[in-house]
């Protein structure tokens, strides 16, 4: 028996894209770059005041930058989803939020370890620390709402992402009004030449890593959507046949 044209089955995707060799090469490249960054960090001269512990900085700052990037990508995807009904925007937002949780965790662990050595305490209620903690909490809430809120929590999560993105500058300024002991962003321009190249290399490799992880995570989301779609079509085809 032939299948009626209305139910002609779509072509089967061979496998989720990430297992392709091109993808594996990108993944390997990102980790190689990260490894090189580690070597460069090891080579970089010791900072005269803080010594070895200053080296946390080379990984801490890129992670913080990725936390910000993830939040803004998440908010952008949420806007596309809320106002244009873009499913793709929604998937991008979810993937970015997960990466934000991952890199936010790295920031929040590496920061206090440095602070213990430099300030003598693990935690200070200070502008940057507080705003990154809150940003991270909001992203965790986003992922929780997506995972446990059922299908209708998607709009809710998207609204949360938008509020999170506007909240960050607000928290930052509100806490900054008391005190700020966190090193300013201007320290980057005062780094010695050996330190500077290590810093930029690690920033670059973390950014590449972010894009690779993002496409990996996005491919999972896309494959999932495709599978659900195929299942519906197959169910219809089987019903028709029996």
């Amino acid at each position, binding site marked *: 028996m032939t299948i009626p044209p209305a139910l002609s089955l779509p072509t089967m995707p061979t496998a989720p894209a990430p297992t392709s060799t091109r993808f594996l090469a990108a993944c390997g490249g990102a980790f190689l770059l990260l490894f090189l960054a580690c070597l460069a960090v090891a080579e970089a001269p010791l900072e005269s005041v803080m010594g070895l512990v200053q080296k946390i900085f080379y990984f801490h700052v890129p992670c913080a930058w990725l936390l910000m990037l993830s939040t803004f990508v998440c908010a952008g995807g949420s806007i596309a989803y*809320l*106002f244009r009904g873009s499913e793709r925007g929604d998937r991008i937002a979810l993937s970015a939020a997960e990466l934000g949780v991952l890199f936010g965790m790295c920031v929040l662990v590496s920061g206090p370890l440095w602070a213990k050595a430099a300030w003598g305490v693990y935690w200070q209620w200070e502008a940057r620390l507080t705003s990154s903690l*809150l940003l991270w*909490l*909001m992203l965790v*809430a986003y992922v*929780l*709402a997506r995972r*446990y*809120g*059922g299908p*209708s*929590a*998607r*709009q*809710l999560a*998207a*609204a*949360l992402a*938008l*509020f*999170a993105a*506007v*909240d960050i500058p*607000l*928290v930052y*300024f*509100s*806490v900054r*009004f008391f005190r700020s002991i966190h090193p300013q962003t201007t320290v980057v321009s005062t780094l010695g030449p050996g330190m500077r190249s290590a810093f930029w290399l690690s920033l670059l490799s973390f950014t590449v890593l972010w894009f690779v992880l993002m496409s990996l995570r996005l491919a999972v989301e896309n494959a999932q959507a495709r599978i659900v779609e195929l299942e519906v079509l197959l169910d219809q085809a089987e019903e028709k046949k029996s």
Partner: protein
Amino acid sequence: MTGSFWRYTLLIAGKDLRIEGKSREVLYTMGFSAALVVLVFSFALSNATDPAQGPITAAGVLWAATLFTGTVALARVLDRERENEAIRALLLSPAPRAAIYAGKLLAVSLLMLAVEVVLVVLVGLLFSAEVFAHPGWLALVLLLGTLGFAATGVVFSAALLRSRSREALLGALLFPIAIPVLLAASRATACMFDPLAPDLEPVAFWVRFLLATDVIYILLGLWVFEPVVSGE
């Protein structure tokens, strides 16, 4: 257009307040839980007698209690629309979505403000704070803080109408977002309660900050409320 927007806003807020006027359910439960929160804090902090920390403690307790009881008001005022699928009727009515948002915001804020009057008196009694030292400023900070909190709260509790595990999620979503409002409002209040404060300069700063935050939150709320409630 703008005329009908305000008309619908007042209509929706009036409807909610009339229901409340008949049953007084939200006011009584909110007022009672507000009193309990203040009592719990006053027992938990009863040994903290350092007078220098007094105003900060009183302001912190006032705002923490406001936030906790605010979620009760949010959950109830929006939950009423879930019974008998009233939300569907509301969405089908000619009222613009933004006016529904504004109406709910107005109703929730007024309920919260009513409870805050009780809260201020209780905090003044139990923490012996000079709550009425600057009544005008206090009213302004209460108003702005409440508006800022309710502006985000209405969006989230409206979105949660169609979702599972609502009560657990509302707090988890709302409190991180509300932190700047909480911080600004409690700092301003602490400065007002402090008889030793040299001047009200910080209060003026925080009031400006709250004003900016409220404008941003309300605009964002008006903007996202429509897609959030009308989604599938």
